[in-house]
């Protein structure tokens, strides 16, 4: 290489380097994330519907349902030594996760479907819009039944502060939505929605959605039956007239897949809960065949065993209160089946029990309370695969819940048998106790109905670490969350005002007044 040429080479190199400093035209493209979508199109609405449907039931399942409603309803008792929520401690971080999980994961796709399919929306579709609205009721119901007033009508506004709605307004909007949606779906009777399998509950079957919506309307009607008897009666009668779920083939069960698993099955891996003493007393007392398909024998003893709710941390350290000494759930709810066991949304049996209670109230429910009650038991048994003589025997059963052999000498839960009793008071307890069994594992409904009716007669908690709610008292609601207090203080303040009582677990909800 001759030296004289080198400077020229060097200058060329420098110029070449400099020419790489191009302008900034490519910046917009560069600043676009290629692993994401930039818009929600008409096809994407189906995927958004699927996400909204799944997440409304799955979102924060453990900290929402498992650690509160499932324990408060005494479907299970806690065995995780350091978990205090079974002693009525409303653990703030868990409730915070439950609240935020719902609004941040289930609401955005639901809003996406509603905004796109609404009349005049970019992918307007009255039928999908109606089904998405029915699902909206399903999604918000357990949330308002936890907290009372919650963000509802202002959801998705993008505002810095989101005002809470009264529970009365929310329930009344639920009724309006269900009525309107059922009306809108009439034109599509017999059809299958374009959602197809993206509707993981009913595969787009419009007729089933109509029955589901009416059953939901009936459920809500019973809920408000104390606070607004006239509204309750008219809504309930309209719902039954419109046709509710009657057969277990219409059970609303959300299908799971390898990538949208059953959160309950997943949680059973963690050994946090076992069969409650209440369940043991009732299921054993009635020789209920469902016990074997709901629960499993305890690992250590091979016996079905439940434990009381509210043991202290030290008591939970004792062998007899450990997870191995008590009944876990049955195989279908174990982690091995989390990709196949569907997640319960609503059993058809529930509608029969709702109608039975309505009939006791004197409403036109299309049958006598006794028949409706027995149809409820039959439908529930059918959902679990039990039919025929065994079911007849059960319905005629005169055995009663049993006392337990445990360290705290637990008495029988109640003295009612399965066979329909003569007095309305006993009948009401029977209907609600059987509904409690039939609705398992829907802890949300079980807790809400227990708060409303006091049935079944659940056991007092062994201990309470919440001075406001002693063990023999009932948690009436969950307090507002730290995340909301930090990010939406004005919203929380509006909620407390509308709650009509202090923001603590003793304040009764609107329908529970």
């Amino acid at each position, binding site marked *: 290489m001759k030296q004289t040429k080198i400077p020229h080479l060097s200058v060329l190199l420098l110029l070449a380097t400099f020419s790489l400093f191009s302008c900034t035209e490519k910046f917009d493209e560069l600043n676009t994330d290629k692993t994401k979508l930039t818009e929600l199109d008409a096809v994407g609405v189906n*995927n*958004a519907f699927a996400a909204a*449907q799944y997440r409304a039931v799955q979102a924060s399942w453990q900290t929402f349902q498992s650690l509160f409603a499932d324990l408060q309803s005494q479907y299970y008792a806690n065995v995780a030594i350091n978990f205090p929520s079974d002693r009525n401690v409303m653990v703030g971080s868990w409730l915070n996760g439950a609240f935020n999980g719902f609004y941040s994961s289930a609401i955005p796709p639901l809003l996406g479907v509603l905004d796109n399919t609404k009349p005049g929306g970019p992918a307007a579709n009255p039928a999908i819009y109606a089904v998405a609205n029915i699902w909206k009721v399903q999604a918000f119901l357990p949330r308002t039944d936890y907290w009372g007033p919650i963000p509802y009508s202002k959801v998705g506004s993008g505002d810095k502060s989101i005002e809470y709605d009264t529970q009365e307004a929310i329930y009344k909007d639920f009724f309006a939505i269900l009525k309107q949606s059922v009306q809108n779906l009439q034109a599509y009777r017999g059809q299958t929605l374009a959602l197809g399998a993206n509707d993981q509950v009913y595969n787009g079957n419009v007729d089933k959605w109509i029955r589901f919506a009416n059953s939901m309307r009936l459920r809500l009607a019973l809920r408000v039956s104390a606070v607004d008897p006239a509204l309750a009666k008219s809504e309930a009668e309209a719902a039954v007239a419109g046709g509710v779920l009657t057969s277990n083939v219409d059970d609303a069960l959300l299908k799971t897949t390898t990538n949208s698993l059953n959160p309950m099955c997943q949680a059973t891996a963690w050994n946090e809960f076992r069969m409650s003493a209440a369940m043991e007393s009732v299921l054993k007392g009635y020789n209920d065949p469902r016990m074997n398909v709901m629960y499993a024998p305890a690992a250590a003893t091979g016996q079905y065993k439940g434990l009381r709710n509210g043991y202290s941390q030290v008591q939970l350290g004792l062998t007899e209160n450990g997870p*191995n000494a008590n009944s876990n759930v049955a195989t279908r709810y174990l982690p091995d089946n989390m*990709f196949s066991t569907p997640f319960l949304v609503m059993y058809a049996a529930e509608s029969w029990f709702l109608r039975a209670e309505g009939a006791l109230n004197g409403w036109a429910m299309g049958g006598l309370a006794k028949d409706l009650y027995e149809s409820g038991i039959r439908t529930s048994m059918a959902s679990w695969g039990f039919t025929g003589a065994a079911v007849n025997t059960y319905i005629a059963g005169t055995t009663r819940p049993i006392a337990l052999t445990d360290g705290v000498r637990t008495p029988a839960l109640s003295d009612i048998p399965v066979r329909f009793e003569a007095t309305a008071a006993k009948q009401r307890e029977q209907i609600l106790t059987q509904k409690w069994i039939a609705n398992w594992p829907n802890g949300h409904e079980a807790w809400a109905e227990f708060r409303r009716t006091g049935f079944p007669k659940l056991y007092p908690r062994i201990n309470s670490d919440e001075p406001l709610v002693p063990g023999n008292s009932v948690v009436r609601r969950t307090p507002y969350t730290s995340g909301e207090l930090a990010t939406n203080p004005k919203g929380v303040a509006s909620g407390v005002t509308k709650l009509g009582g202090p923001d603590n677990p003793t304040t009764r909800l609107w329908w529970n007044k």
Partner: protein
Amino acid sequence: MGSILIGSVSAQSTRQVTGKVTGNDNAPVASATVQVKGGAQSAMTGNDGSFSITTPAGATVLTITSAGFLSADVEVPTGQSTVNVTLNADNKQLNEVVVTAMGLSKSKRTLSYATQQVQTNTFSKARELNVANSLIGRVAGLDVARSSSGVGGSSRVVLRGDRSITGNNQALIVIDGVPMDNSNFSPGNANGGRDGGDGISSINPDDIESINVLRGASATALYGARAANGALIINTKKGTRKGLGVSVNSSYIAEQAIVLQEFQDVYGQGSAGVYNRASEFSWGPKMDGSQVAMWGPKPSNVGQTYSFKPQPGTYENFYSTGNQASNSLAVSGGGDRMQAYFSYTNVNAKGIVDNNTMKRNTMNLRISGDLGSKVSYDSKVTYLDEVINNRQQTGEAFANLQRHILRLPRNISLQAAEDYDFINPASGQLRQNYWNPGSNGGQNPYWIKNRVSALDKRARVTAFGSMTYKPLEWLSFMGRAGIDQYNDDFEGKWYNNTYTIADNGDYQTLFRKVREINLDFFGFVKKSFGDFNVDATFGASRQTFSSLAQSTSTGGLNRDNLFIPSNARSPQIGRSLAETEKQGVFMTADFSFRDFLTLTASARNDWSSTLPKESRSYFFPSAGFSAILSNILDLPTFISFAKLRGNYAVTGNDARPYLLNQTYTFSAGGPTGFISRDGVRPFPDLKPELTTSLEVGTEVRLLNNRFGFDLGWYTSESKNQLFSVAIPPASGWSSQFINAGLVRNTGVELTMNGAIVRNSALRWDVDLNFARNTNLLVELTPDLKRLVLAGDFVNDVVVEEGKPLGQLYSRGYQRNAQGQILVDATGLPRISAGKTVFMGNSRPDWTGGINNRISWKSFSLSFLISARMGGYVSSFTNAVIYADGVTKKTLEGRDSYVVDGVRDDGSKNTTATNAEKFWVRVGGRNTPAGEVFTYDASNIRLRELVLSYNLPNNVIKGLPFQSGSISLVGRNLFFLLNRAEGFDPELTAGAQNTTVGLESFSLPSTRTVGVNLNLSF
């Protein structure tokens, strides 16, 4: 590593050389060191400046050094036996050259901002796997927090306090003028995780020539945004013009756990004093040696009994002695036209958890030279290959081994626990053998150690090439291209029956490719106009960055323990991307008048791809001065040098990519997938952040430069900060970015050095540094005064207006108006429901260090004491293991214990409880009262000790090398002060802003002791 000329060896015998050393004022120089160049022989001048030295065969050059004077090499031709030497006053020291922004060399005396050159000569002897840890205690204002993930862990390096509320606060790392990516893609956090390692841990200490710390934003205005947190300017070794040098450096270092936690050896497994073979607690009966039921589901254990007796020392005995063997070979040499330096370093390390290992190979080739008088070039390629096994999980993670060994019930021996698995005879499956099968949170520590594994591999190439063209004496141009690219490959295996986190096993992989390319063009102007000098640089730069990661996980394995991605129950595939580009033009100029005064001005404009079009371009200037008072004023003679400096700078910072537009995520789920709008609200009006800083300082040297100090004061304000705030999720989004906030840091920094003793036998030099930073969040947002940045089981990390960043809040005792603890009807203290009790601030009040360097004949000794004073740290570990009943403190009140407190009615509590109930109330995993487990984080420790022996000539004679030294080294030897109980407050849950104040199931702190051999051929 020294090197000497090969070929200068001749067959002469030794000779005696005598002479006298004087200064340029003709006064004799006492205590000057006279050394045979490249050899081990040395002598010291007497009070009259005279010396006598024996020189080996062929040695013809003596090196004379003395504090306050320029060192001098004198040729003593063969046959000559006397030589007189005149030393010039130490203009070299005063003219110390430092490398500043963009790799520009500057004379330190003209700098208008604070820098500190780091003593790096012990870095390759008393080695740390992460060079960042070698900096602790040596640099004023530098704070390092280490993650506790063992071999391969990362460190958080912060200069002059935290500036950014939620963003990166770490110093920029620049190697040979080219920035290095120091991303930590998975910093551990309080709730558990596995530290993914950082960039600075990839630096090989053997190749470091110098490290210069630029503390402020002003020093680095030319780097733009990334240097707003200061910078570590690292220069690596180059070849020399003087023939071939070969050097070998070998170290063997042993690492040992420092066990600070105290355990009890009285009570064993169980609750309420009752033995329970399945218990995870040590609240059972006294361990009296009686026979009790054997634990575990292993068939051969069932029905067996064993002796219920204490097993002292299980914690310390679980850990073994780690070690680190490193060997490096460096060859340097060259001629006038081309110089080369090549090094190869191999490090084999094993942590105190013996399957936590690292193998690291580093190869480095540097070639520089010139092509004629006007063109020169420089180039370097470094290749690093690193394999790390079982980097330890941190924090609350159920696969964090430390968690399980700390919780081990006190009656279970390591030997028994080591029987950690078995084959279930019914199913043929491999199962875990643990006292509480299926536990939610508990595991057999040996199962976690052996049945949960992690393998991290990294291959990294950093390279640059530059060419300089100097057409005129006062003008030159340089073009430079630098690349830093690395691929990470992670593989994690969880065997079936790893309770609750992988009951069906799991296999996860992650592949990541990160690339940063920097292209720079510079022009340099250096010209004098009489008494005026101009030294100016202008140029342009373009930086492109991309990071692509692809991950898989199985969500459980179909076939047991077959670790293949397709053996997935619920396959999950993730892909993430970040691409950015930044372009900039800049100029900086120093205008000097004689030797007195320098004025500096710089300006930069950046264009960033992550900002919206309207604010994509942003400009930031700086200005400063330095005045050499000792050249301007007639100062007393004991002041050798005095300088004043001042600087004002503005730095802009851009954002992370993809914040401007709404995005939707498609994820697997349902029959055809889920689509959901992302929860981060788009921020189309994003603006760049702005940091302004002002600093002044003075540097003084006294008594012929024998003593000196540098004192600086600074203040910086970072505003318009870009950070994410949680918004009501019912709004439709969960968080949004905002431009707001104002964080002010004010502080002082002091470095001092002095030659304490200097006589013919002994030299003792002391370097001292001290820094105090006051951090204040002046404003958060107009309508937000408090923001919870992160929450863990113990603390909320909170920023509040009017308070420093890093405030810790937790649960605490409920107290009455008199401050007395309220006790409930059961005699237990009431604990606040929420994390509402202030614990303290996690950042230190001040940091400092004293380094002593003592040499006596052929021995030299250096030791470094470092202090990090103030600040608070909470221990999640203690919260859990106190409630488990394993610590010594839980012995008190086992039978009965009356809490010192009052009832709600104000009367004194007399209701007895016991230790179990008490510790379960205040501790435990879910709602611990941080007040009980928060400690003063102040600590002082003997950070480093190096004792070296330079092989004398009569030992070397006949051996095939020219010089050699052998050193004994130790690091982190012991605490002089540690107020934390049972742990090292320096080991944090992760290398993040929000984990500084939390210890969470960390590995025990370790001390290292080793030996180093250094030979030059």
